[in-house]
């Protein structure tokens, strides 16, 4: 079986609804609360194959976490687990999970099946070192501690971590990605057969998510694991899974081999989910949100659960709950709970399929590229905002002992960035967490004072104006530059009505208008941003609004200031995935109406791309406080010049079956270097797959690239650079020319 698991996906596709060599057989299993009143997992019957990776996708509140907990018989109190869960150990007779005694269950957990939770930070005891967690786990299961720790070190090393450093650290001393990997090692320290992962990467940024996924893939092969991977992010798990299951309203809606689910889904919900995913390759107009919300456990529809949201629902769907049955008679591995799988396949077209055909021509984006070009050319005009060699360094607080032993540590959040923002411009700052994109954004709108360099607003230094000597008064600059925060919930005063929140900015911009006039203006703006009936919304408090509505109010508040530029700091990350496109569209429409510039900070290339492409903007890729590449979205996606942009491009999940699961990350190191002590030369050289000796010593500047718009800071753009003659660094590709080709 061990060899089997490393072979290709298709070999493992099973022939029946029940798999050949199951490790878990789950039969009619339910989880109920309130004495059976509330059902959060209903009559689930599914088998999990040995050594497979099963990806389970569902919206929040669909019962997917309950399924994960059920596999360990760890339903949170006072939930009741009923049904039949049979576990087949690698050797020995099958175990009925619900019949285990307390001691047997204690041993079963972690030794046979273990679990990785979403928040690694909250999964470690904050007052204990990481190593102590490993030790106590080994002790609790009567294992040999030093042998176990040896195995733990091996695991950590396989996860690209330094074992000694990690074991000797407190949880908070590690970055989010490191913690999550340490948690994976902790869950594997007793060498379990099954790993259940509940949203293990949701709190991390894309690049780290993808890196962890590749590592998981490797671990699965090395240690013959069975992995159950639960997530809300369909494209993410699609690259990893052998089989995929879609969970909707506490039941499996569809289950089947990965390629079948992605390419030939039979349930309308799956198809809608596929179409709602922001996708680098899909034509933008085709992305559609799914209308409505999943049902609450108390109000599950009597017929098909998806019927109220389903565009194809018939009378039969309203009355009869479809069973999870084989889609085609000859291929029983693919099962779907829908009465009309054939209609679904016909009626709901998958947009990324069409994308592949259209991409070749690439015609729809041609005009935007030239627009970017022209805008960039308008250098004669004074830019709205102009950064000149700006640096922002933070000095860290020190502890009592460090005070006497070390120099103060300086975090170089932003280092030597020059950037011009024009009137009605649109720039997306893109990068991993901790790359300084938010700091740069805040510097751009004059919220963060640069420690070096200058920032000018229409030719006037903002910080000189603040100190009182400027031609443009500081108040004017201040109100011209606005911000929308990531979390609208904490950006709106919870004790004030929407009307009060909005009128604050109106009072500032139009001090002379009366109360009725103010209300009229707010009313029309709310209607404009799609919040009708506006009168009702005006009298509400922020907590009475949904996340998307709150973000709209925050946007309206910024717009009422009549700003010249708005910084949207991860402004859509807190909004539900299906609503993101709507909000982004709204922001783009309002940009032209209100004639403002937008600065959009994001860690997600597909969001940034959507924004930049629709708004004729540029994307600036940041790495460790520097801009490494800047250009139009179209050029960046299809012709990335900087290796880091290429990495980000790789990390952005897509649904193309051919490219799926292809290869290791184009990176030599998973973790971002410490911004306190950034690498010499090109800061990316420690992770760059094509780095050479020259990169270690010299620092590349942004230079205009040939045959395309924008700039990139990489020696590879200069055909005459000594880079081409120097030796590749440890682990880097020998022939960088080949790398550029793929």
């Amino acid at each position, binding site marked *: 079986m061990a060899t089997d698991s490393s072979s290709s996906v298709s070999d493992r596709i099973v022939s029946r609804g029940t798999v050949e060599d199951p490790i878990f057989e789950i039969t009619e299993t339910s989880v109920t609360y309130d004495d059976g009143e509330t059902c959060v997992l209903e009559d689930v019957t599914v088998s999990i194959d040995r050594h497979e990776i099963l990806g389970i996708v569902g919206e929040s509140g669909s019962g997917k976490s309950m399924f994960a907990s059920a596999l360990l018989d760890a339903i949170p109190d006072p939930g009741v687990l009923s049904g039949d869960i049979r576990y087949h150990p690698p050797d020995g007779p099958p175990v009925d999970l619900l019949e285990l005694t307390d001691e047997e269950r204690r041993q079963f957990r972690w030794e046979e099946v*273990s*679990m990785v939770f979403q928040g690694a930070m909250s999964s470690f*005891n904050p*007052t204990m070192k990481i190593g102590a967690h490993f030790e106590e786990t080994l002790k609790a299961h009567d294992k040999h501690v030093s042998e176990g720790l040896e195995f733990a070190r091996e695991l950590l090393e396989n996860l690209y971590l330094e074992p000694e450093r990690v074991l000797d650290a407190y949880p908070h001393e590690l970055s989010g990605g490191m913690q999550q990997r340490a948690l994976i090692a902790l869950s594997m320290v007793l060498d379990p057969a099954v790993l259940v992962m509940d949203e293990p990467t949701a709190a991390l940024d894309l690049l780290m998510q993808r890196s962890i996924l590749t590592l998981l893939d490797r671990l699965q092969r090395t240690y013959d694991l069975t992995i159950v991977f639960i997530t809300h992010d369909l494209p993410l798990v699609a690259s990893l899974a052998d089989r995929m299951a879609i969970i909707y309203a506490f039941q499996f809606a569809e289950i089947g081999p990965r390629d079948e689910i992605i390419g030939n889904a039979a349930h309308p919900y799956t198809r809608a989910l596929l179409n709602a995913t922001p996708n680098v390759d899909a034509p933008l107009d085709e992305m559609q949100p799914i209308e409505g919300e999943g049902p609450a456990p108390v109000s599950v529809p009597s017929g098909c659960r998806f019927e109220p949201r389903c565009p194809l629902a018939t009378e039969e769907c309203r009355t009869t709950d479809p069973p999870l049955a084989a889609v085609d008679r000859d291929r029983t591995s693919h099962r779907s709970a829908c009465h009309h799988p054939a209609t679904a396949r016909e009626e709901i077209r998958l947009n990324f399929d069409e994308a592949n055909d259209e991409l070749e021509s690439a015609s729809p984006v041609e005009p935007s590229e030239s627009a970017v070009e022209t805008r960039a050319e308008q250098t004669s005009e004074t830019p709205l905002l102009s950064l000149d060699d700006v640096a922002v360094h933070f000095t860290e*607080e020190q502890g009592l002992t460090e005070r006497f032993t070390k120099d103060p540590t300086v975090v170089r959040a932003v280092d030597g960035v020059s950037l011009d923002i024009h009137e009605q411009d649109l720039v997306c700052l893109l990068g991993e967490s901790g790359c300084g994109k938010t700091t740069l954004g805040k510097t751009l709108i004059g919220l963060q004072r640069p420690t070096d360099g200058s920032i000018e607003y229409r030719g006037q230094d903002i910080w000189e104006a603040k100190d009182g000597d400027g031609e443009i008064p500081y108040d004017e600059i201040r109100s011209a530059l606005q911000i929308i925060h990531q979390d609208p919930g904490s950006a709106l005063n919870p004790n004030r009505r929407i009307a009060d929140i909005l009128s604050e900015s109106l009072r500032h911009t139009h001090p002379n208008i009366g109360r009725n006039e103010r209300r009229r203006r707010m009313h029309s703006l709310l209607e404009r941003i799609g919040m009708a009936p506006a009168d009702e919304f005006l009298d509400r408090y922020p907590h009475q609004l949904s996340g998307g509505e709150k973000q709209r109010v925050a946007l309206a508040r910024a717009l009422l200031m009549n700003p010249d530029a708005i910084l949207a700091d991860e402004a859509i990350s807190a909004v539900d995935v299906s609503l993101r496109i709507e909000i982004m569209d709204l922001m783009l429409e309002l940009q032209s109406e209100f004639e403002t510039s937008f600065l959009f900070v994001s860690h997600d290339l597909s969001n940034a791309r959507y924004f930049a492409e629709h708004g004729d903007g540029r994307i600036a890729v940041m790495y460790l406080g520097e801009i490494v590449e800047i250009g139009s979205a179209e050029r960046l996606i299809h012709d990335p010049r900087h290796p880091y942009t290429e990495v980000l491009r790789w990390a952005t999940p897509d649904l193309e079956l051919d490219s799926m699961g292809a290869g290791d990350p184009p990176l030599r190191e998973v973790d971002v270097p410490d911004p306190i002590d950034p690498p010499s030369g090109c800061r990316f050289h420690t992770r760059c797959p094509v780095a050479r000796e020259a990169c270690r010593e010299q620092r590349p500047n942004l230079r205009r690239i040939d045959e395309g718009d924008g700039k990139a800071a990489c020696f590879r753009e200069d055909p005459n650079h000594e880079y081409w003659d120097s030796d590749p660094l440890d682990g880097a590709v020998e022939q960088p020319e080949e790398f550029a080709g793929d």
Partner: protein
Amino acid sequence: MNYYLKRTAQIPLTILAVATLTFGLIRLLPGGPFTQLRLELLQQGVPAEQVDTRIEALQNIRPDAPLWQQYLDYLIGVAQLDLGQSISLNEPVIDVLARSLPWTVFLVVTSTILMFVVGVVIGALQAYWEGSRFDRLTSGGSIFLMSVPYYIFAVIFLFILAFQLQLFPTGNAVDRGVDASLSLAYFSSVLHHAALPILAFTISGIGSTALNMRGNGIQVLGKEYVEVARLRGLSNNRIATRYVARNAILPMYTGLLLLIGFRLGGTVVLEEIFSYPGLGYYMIQAVNANDYPLMMGCFLVITVTLVVGVYIADLTYGLIDPRISAGDSDEY
């Protein structure tokens, strides 16, 4: 500037401010500080022209000098630990303080630690059995204890246990005739005398500590790391001590040191009720006798202890909670 340096520099500044305030406030009192002393001296038959010199000799302060001069003299005295001469007791203030402070510290530290331990245990049990009958009853009890001031308990205990049942003495710190030595008799006498004040002072604080611990405990019990620890098969004992108790008690640690400081001031009434010869007892005496130097000395000692307590709490919290030094604690 560095946090610890800043924090250390704040201490002398705070003490200076306190000394200034005591100095100023007492000058504002009717009668002025040395009217009493002057009267006494005159009654003793000291010639009127020598009175000022005598006062100066006793108190380091020239009553006829301008205010700023007096202020400076006072500060210099404080810096040299010379707080003047007590008028009513006729001995240096510093001696009185040295004699009484240990008793007060003994009362406060013992009762606060007792209160903390008992409160934490009760609160932890409440958190484990959240919603149970025990939880409801003790919550009610805690709120009752919180709302009744400690001196009510003190008076009740004194009346019933000391006067009616005569189980405990009604005053003093040790029996007369028992000498200060390491003997058993001395210690039992000390405990016997301190029992009631400590009991009264402890019982009133248990309520808030228990409720605090209950809240923290419930919060920590709901944390994911406790769930993960359970799944990892750790013993309940280990989870209770290393995971729940430790993380629940940590945020209360700063509060504990602060509390010791605050309760030091609270002993004034307590010691008066039990006639316990501690700092508070002498302070009341000083107020009654218009003994300004002693009063100022007592004020100063109480505030300095509070300031130092807060300082120690601030400095050591980083050592106890590994997250603080990184500046990202999410507790409280």
